[in-house]
């Protein structure tokens, strides 16, 4: 059974989806989702520790067809690191989903909700596991299509979810189309879709214009999918108007998977020595990343709706990941992986805590949380810790991310960029302070709805908070794993 783990990782949620759709009782559908995401989390942890111990790349041939002909699933240091992030968040979000979904979604749709929920998780896990470029596209579509449906399910409570889902659908499809156009060019040039084989054969034709065009299409498509500034406009409404459980799952995982796929394609297939890569992707990603960090942070400061605020801050955080990628070095990639991991934890904590509030009163604006610090201390503390981690305060995971990011930039003598990264992180203090001021320093207005918190409200968020602090204090295993992941793509010393 052990050798089947790479496929079971994806297969369990994938086959769980049709089963969940057929279940009539909503608690059974939820239970199935919980069971399967839990199993996926367990499997990803086994795979991670196995990979860490042996240091080998695990390859699973689907249908018994070996690599260049068949589709293979590959567990190397990079995918082994990203899998537990996705499945772990999915597991915790599923725990929280029961209450959130009960509050926000029509009872008749629960079974279908969990079907789409499992599908999107399977799609994300598949993108990370697979070693086939076209298979990535298939899983990208599986996860995206079900995500559009999930966002649109917010319409029962908030009609704006419908245009948000539609925008997301259009732009997401454009992104996926660009990716597949680029892939078509690569296939035309090399006649293969296996990532390793593609990378080998591309070396012979790397100076052709078609190869460069393929790079441009693939990179652009994935920029759109990962919501890199200025292609991020679909993200904020989609996260803000989606059901709270969906916001939590997607804010923590969806864009991260695209970041991973970008790294996998750009560095794993084209390679760091690809002509024009350093200018076209490196410089562009750096510029857009730092611009996004500022734009996202400033927009977050102006926002009064909590979901929108943290969605804007996601734009900034994705900017930091982009900066790590744009540094074009092993340390830079490691920083991107570290931030990918840590940001998933922080955003998971934040959106789960906000969801607990939004599920009670419909929306979580500044007015809702005014003076709420004493009424729901644990939930608000979770938001506070998440916010502090976003700034990069020491003892939180965010600090480690920023530390390695700045280190990667200084390694390349990008002093200005390092300073800008620092400034934009400090600016994040403004929106976190705004929340602290509203929640703790102001009085609760008279006649405001009474917010409650019971363990079901705060335990999922606090699991993430504990992880955020834990990885902030004991960061070295994560840092080692991230460097190992980065060295899959770029060699070099630590």
């Amino acid at each position, binding site marked *: 059974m052990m050798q089947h783990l790479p496929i079971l990782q994806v297969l369990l949620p994938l086959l769980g989806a*049709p089963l969940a759709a057929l279940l009539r009782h909503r608690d059974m559908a939820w239970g199935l989702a919980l069971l399967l995401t839990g199993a996926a989390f367990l499997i990803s942890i086994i795979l991670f520790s196995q990979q860490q111990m042996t240091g080998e790349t695990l390859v699973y041939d689907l249908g*018994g067809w070996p690599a260049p002909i068949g589709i293979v699933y590959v567990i190397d240091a990079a995918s082994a690191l990203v899998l537990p992030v996705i499945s772990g968040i999915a597991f915790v979000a599923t725990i929280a989903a029961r209450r959130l979904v009960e509050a926000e979604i029509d009872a008749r749709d629960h079974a279908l909700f969990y079907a789409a929920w499992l599908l999107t998780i399977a799609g994300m896990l598949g993108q990370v596991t697979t070693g086939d470029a076209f298979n990535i596209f298939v899983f990208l579509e599986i996860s995206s299509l079900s995500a559009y449906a999930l966002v649109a399910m917010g319409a029962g409570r908030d009609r704006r979810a419908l245009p948000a889902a539609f925008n997301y659908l259009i732009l997401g499809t454009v992104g996926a189309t660009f990716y597949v156009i680029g892939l078509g060019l690569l296939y035309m040039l090399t006649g293969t879709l296996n990532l390793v084989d593609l990378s080998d054969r591309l070396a012979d034709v790397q100076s052709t214009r078609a190869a460069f065009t393929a790079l441009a299409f693939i990179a652009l498509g994935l920029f759109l999918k990962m919501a890199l500034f200025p292609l991020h406009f679909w993200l904020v409404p989609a996260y803000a108007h989606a059901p709270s459980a969906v916001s939590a799952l997607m804010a923590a995982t969806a864009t991260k998977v695209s970041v991973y796929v970008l790294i996998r394609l750009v560095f794993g297939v084209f390679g760091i020595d690809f002509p024009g890569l350093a200018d076209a992707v490196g410089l562009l990603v750096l510029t857009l990343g730092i611009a996004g960090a500022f734009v996202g942070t400033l927009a977050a400061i102006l926002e009064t709706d909590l979901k929108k605020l943290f969605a804007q801050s996601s734009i900034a955080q994705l900017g930091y990941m982009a900066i790590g990628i744009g540094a074009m070095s092993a340390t830079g990639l490691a920083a991107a992986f570290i931030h990918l991991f840590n940001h998933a934890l922080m955003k998971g904590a934040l959106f789960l805590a906000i969801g607990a509030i939004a599920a009670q009163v419909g929306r979580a604006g500044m007015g809702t949380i005014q003076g709420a610090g004493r009424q729901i201390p644990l939930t608000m503390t979770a938001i506070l810790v998440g916010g502090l981690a976003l700034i990069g305060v020491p003892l939180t995971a965010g600090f480690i991310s920023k530390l390695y990011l700045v280190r990667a930039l200084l390694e390349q003598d990008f002093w200005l960029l390092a300073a800008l990264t620092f400034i934009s992180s400090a600016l994040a203090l403004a929106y976190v302070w705004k929340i602290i001021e509203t929640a703790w320093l102001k009085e609760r207005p008279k006649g405001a709805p009474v917010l409650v918190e019971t363990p079901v409200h705060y335990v999922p968020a606090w699991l993430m908070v504990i992880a955020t602090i834990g990885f902030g204090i004991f960061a070295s295993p994560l840092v080692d794993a991230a460097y190992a992941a980065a060295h899959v793509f770029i060699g070099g010393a630590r």
Partner: protein
Amino acid sequence: MHDDVVIRVIAKVMIPAVMLFALYVQFHGDYGPGGGFQAGVVFAAAFVLNAMIFGLNRGRHAWPARLNLLAICGGVLLYGLTGVASMLLGANYLDYDVLGATTQSGQHIGILLVEFGVGLTVASVMVALFFTFAGRLTHIRLMAKMQAHEEADQRKTKRKARSTKKRARK
């Protein structure tokens, strides 16, 4: 659609032929061009034609929604469980070799099952898409009718209010 005897009679003749052809595309797909996707779409076309000629209600009756959901999920499960079966028989996921007595018959059984799963899901998803969108139309018409009634009611009450006011002034 107007009730046209020519269209009705031809549809009645064509629908079984379309379905039969779909099954041919499905099962001959092992040897020649065809397979689950194409067959599924052709099969669904028969139901779409039926609904277009004989009306949505009769169309829905021919392929109830609950059955459709079962078929959508059943197809995916058939595909996935074929893979699981080969896993339980000791090979990799979707390795058909172990499904039969010889590798050749195993491959045959495997592809037959998997393609049937594909065909089932594709056909039922196509039918579901058609009925969902076609159902929207009746829904929209109904909403428009209701809105018109509401507006007429409002106008009536307004007129009444105005006339009572006038009377009061007099």
